[in-house]
Structures are given as structure tokens and as C-alpha cells.
């Protein structure tokens, strides 16, 4: 079968400190930080090291938890104050699944798909999340294991609201598609991994249209694991806490969100007159292969780029980096990009510098940020990248180092501190995850 082109035709989701996609778009391109002090973390005093997050409250998403009368502080279900999601679907959903359903409805509306198209055997749902725990699971387990209560007090919705592919399942039950329904999990590459997998399903003729993306619901359960690793940013004001590439960066900001996009086979989208937001050039993913769970791999990233570019001339105008604001990750990534693309002719954008690291949602939320860059013809900044290290990184001085021999400060011109206009025809997006997994996608304007 001939390989097919894939178009991005819709998007939606849940975005830190924003009530909708329009607000997200406006705040990003006006150089705002979406990171705030997080009251839920502050409640725990010195037991939590980092107190800042790009979080989203239930109220900000128009949701209200209905407390159970059987288990203390247990959300029995949720009320959608804006009447977007029916009660029967809310009953089977955790907060992240509700965000996914809202994002799916917005994406379908933007795509302009008919009900017949949505309910087709050729329409799939591919959505995943990164964290394993949430409030529902913790309180249901506490009721049984610690309080010694009967299982039925937790109600009949602990499985559907906590299973690994809950977001995909809830979206599929809402929109009633008849094609695939699956979740890809690859830690902080999950969001892009799901979009990439969905792209391949369409490219190789298995589906015609897919709702896909990544989700990470606001969850102290997810936050505290990273806090305990001492890898979260500390010591800055909230808006200055995420500082990708800056010499004083000391960790990432743990954030939450959902990025949902509608993909469609290009010729079908074109034939029905769809507004094509972007075209996917290719997707490529791999593993470091060095046995290290956490530390980024320059060699793995080099192979990632070569796999994406192959022999094609895919010179990007912007590289949307993973750029977490961690000491090792940012340096390896910048040097890796420079080694492949050279020292000029493109710019680097790090959306995490504006809203933090949305974990399993990151690749999808940042994919949406990249599509917005194409639409606005503006580069998003590397906020707070005030000073790049004028000295060589320690690893650059080792005999084994094969990458660029210049300090990060030599590449200042690639790293903008503010959003700016320029012609953008192609963007490469990068995301990596624990376990040494690397993902990349190239998107272009429709010509």
C-alpha cells in the first residue's frame, strides 16, 4: 500500500492556568509564564521540597467533585458545570479522562467531522497518560487496606477511573467511534508517542482519522514522586522557576494538562475542504540503548535525528525541544541539536519554560504549541534563559565526548528569550522519557 499523508485538523485540551485553547494561545505568545505557587503543595510544608506548578483546578475546567458519603474525601463523580459531558460519562471518568473528553469534543468540532465520520470503523482513539496514581486510587485503597472497609464502599468505578488506558476508553465511549481504542505509554514522551502512533495508523492505511494525545491530571500523587527525587526546580519565583538552558536552572517544574488533536488522512481532509492546521512530515522514535533509566543520551538523540531526517531535506525553521530545565538534560539536548543542524538557520523553542513539564501530556501539549507557532508565524521563547553557561559543561571535557566543543553560550542566537515573528514552514518536536525513550516528529505548513 502506498504511504499516505496525514493532516492535523483539530485540537483542544486542558492547559495550565488557562480555561481554553484561545487563552493558552494568547498567554503563550505574550511571553507569559503559566506557573504558579501551588496551594496543594504548600499545605504539606517542609514535607514537599518544590511548591510551584503549572496546575489546573477543577473549578478552572468548570468541574466540581461530588464527595462520596461512604469514603471520606472520595470523589464519587464529577459535575460538569458547563454541560459538555453527560453524567453517565462523568461517572466513569477521573479528572484527566474528563479533560480528554472535553479536548476530544473541541478537536472534533474544529475538525468539522460529521457524526457518521466520528462513529466510523475508520476512526480511532489513541490517548495515554504518564502517572500511575491518582486521588481515586489512593482513597479507594486507603479505605480498604488501612481502614479495613468493604470493597463496595469504594463504589463500582475504581477500575474504569484508574485503568491505564482510561482516557482513551472514556473518549471512545463518549464519541462512539468503531475503530481502534488504545493507549501508548512512554513516560514523558507519552503525549508525542500517542500522536506518533496515531500518525502511523493513518499513514499505513489502518485508520482514516484519529483523536489522539496525552494527559496528565492535576495530581499530588504524581508530583511527590518527582519531588522526592529532588529533580524539581527550587528557589525561584513561580514564573522564573522553569528556565530552560539558563545557567542557574536546577530542575523542572511539575505541571499538568491535556493535549488532544484530531488527525486525518490528508487527501480526505483536503477533499472535504477541512482547515488543515499542519501536515505531519514524519515521526521517529528509538531508545538510548545504554542501560541508563534517567540520564539523557547524546548518541541516542543523534540516532533519533538521523532516523527522523533520513535522506530527506527536512531542515526545520524551529526546533521545539523537550527542554525541561534540568542541568544535564538541557545541555545534552542543545548540543545534540547543534551537532545535527549547525549553528544557525533555525531557532529553538522551549514551551516548558512557560508552563512547566506536563509529564505524560507534555509531548501533546507542546505539539499543540508547535502548531500554534505555525499558525501564528511566531517562535515561542525559551523564557528565563537569561545567561547560558560560558564555560564548557563537565562532560564536554571528557575524552569520550564526540559532540560540539563550544560552551552553550556560543549558541545564544539560537535561543530566544522572547517570542518573535519569522517565517516558519517546518518545526521539529522532540520529547524524551525515563527508560531512555526518545520521540521526534516533523510538521509543516500546508502548501
Amino acid at each position, binding site marked *: 500500500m502506498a504511504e499516505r499523508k496525514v493532516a492535523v485538523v483539530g485540537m483542544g485540551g486542558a492547559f495550565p492556568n488557562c480555561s481554553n485553547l484561545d487563552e493558552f494561545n494568547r498567554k503563550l505568545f505574550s511571553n507569559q509564564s503559566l506557573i504558579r505557587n501551588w496551594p496543594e503543595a504548600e499545605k504539606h510544608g517542609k514535607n514537599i521540597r518544590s511548591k510551584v506548578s503549572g496546575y489546573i483546578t477543577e473549578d478552572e475546567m468548570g468541574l466540581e467533585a*461530588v464527595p462520596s*458519603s*461512604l469514603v471520606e474525601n472520595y470523589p*464519587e*463523580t464529577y*459535575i460538569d458545570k458547563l454541560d459538555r459531558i453527560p*453524567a*453517565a460519562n*462523568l*461517572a466513569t471518568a477521573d479528572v484527566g479522562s474528563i479533560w480528554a473528553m472535553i479536548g476530544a469534543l473541541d478537536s472534533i468540532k474544529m475538525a468539522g467531522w460529521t457524526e457518521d465520520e466520528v462513529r466510523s470503523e475508520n476512526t480511532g482513539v489513541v490517548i495515554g497518560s504518564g502517572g500511575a496514581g491518582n486521588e481515586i486510587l489512593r482513597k479507594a485503597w486507603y479505605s480498604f487496606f488501612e481502614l479495613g472497609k*468493604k470493597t*463496595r*464502599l469504594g*463504589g*463500582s*468505578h475504581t477500575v474504569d477511573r484508574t485503568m491505564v488506558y482510561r482516557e482513551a476508553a472514556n473518549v471512545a465511549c463518549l464519541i462512539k467511534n468503531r475503530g481502534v481504542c488504545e493507549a501508548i505509554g512512554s513516560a514523558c514522551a507519552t503525549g508525542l508517542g500517542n500522536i506518533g502512533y496515531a500518525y502511523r495508523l493513518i499513514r499505513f492505511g489502518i485508520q482514516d482519522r484519529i483523536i489522539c494525545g496525552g494527559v496528565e491530571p492535576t495530581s499530588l500523587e504524581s508530583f511527590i514522586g518527582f519531588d522526592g527525587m529532588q529533580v524539581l526546580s527550587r528557589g525561584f519565583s513561580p514564573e522564573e522557576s522553569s528556565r530552560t538552558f539558563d545557567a542557574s536552572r536546577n530542575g523542572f517544574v511539575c505541571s499538568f494538562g491535556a493535549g488532544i488533536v484530531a488527525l486525518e488522512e490528508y487527501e480526505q481532509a483536503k477533499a472535504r475542504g477541512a482547515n488543515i492546521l499542519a501536515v505531519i512530515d514524519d515521526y521517529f522514535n528509538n531508545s538510548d540503548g545504554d542501560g541508563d533509566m534517567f540520564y539523557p543520551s547524546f548518541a541516542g538523540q543523534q540516532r533519533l535525528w538521523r532516523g527522523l531526517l533520513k535522506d530527506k531535506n527536512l531542515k526545520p525553521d524551529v526546533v521545539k525541544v523537550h527542554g525541561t530545565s534540568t542541568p544535564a538534560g538541557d545541555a545534552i539536548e542543545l548540543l545534540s541539536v547543534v551537532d545535527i543542524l549547525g549553528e544557525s538557520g533555525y531557532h529553538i523553542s522551549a514551551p516548558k519554560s512557560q508552563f512547566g513539564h506536563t509529564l505524560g501530556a507534555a509531548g501533546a501539549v507542546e505539539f499543540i504549541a508547535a502548531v500554534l507557532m505555525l499558525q501564528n508565524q511566531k517562535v515561542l521563547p525559551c523564557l528565563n534563559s537569561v545567561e547560558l553557561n560560558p564555560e564548557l559543561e563537565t562532560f564536554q571535557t571528557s575524552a569520550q565526548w564526540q559532540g560540539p566543543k563550544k560552551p552553550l553560550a556560543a549558541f545564544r542566537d539560537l535561543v530566544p528569550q522572547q517570542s518573535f515573528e519569522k517565517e516558519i514552514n517546518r518545526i521539529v518536536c522532540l520529547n524524551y522519557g525515563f527508560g531512555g525513550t526518545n520521540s521526534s516528529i516533523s510538521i509543516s505548513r500546508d502548501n
Partner: protein
Amino acid sequence: MSREEVIAGLVDILKTVRQINPEKLNNISEQTDFITDLGTPSTEMINIAAKAEQKFDVEFDDDDIDDLGSKVKDFVDLILNTKAKG
């Protein structure tokens, strides 16, 4: 406790089940079926039973819940019989 009082308590519980149309709770009788008449999803039946245990201060046997029908009468019988067992 009278059967009418039990039914009134059950209606209070049903009002908390958001998948049930509240208008359908105006004319509840012993013959009303939770699933076919009220449109209650079958997954909610165990939640209703757990809330009934709390409201009427009883603890149902698992066997009785397994055998429970879906009419209001079935719930009233179970609650009163369990209470009678002490």
C-alpha cells in the same frame, strides 16, 4: 421502620445518582424497576446498595446482594429482612 419510610430513604439515595433523571423519582412504587424504569446503569446498583447500608445502618450479606433483584420492592425486602435479623 415502615416500608414507606424505607422507600422514602431509597428515593433520597437515588437523588444522589446523577445518571438518573430526577423527574422519574416523583412516582416511585414498590414495582418500579431501577434499571428498566429509572434507566439506572447496572454498575450503579452496587453503589446504591452500599449507600443503603449506610443510610439504614445495616450490613448486607454478599449472597443477598448477589441475589438482589432490580425492583424497589427487592431493596425494601432486603433492608427490612436484614434489619429483622439484627
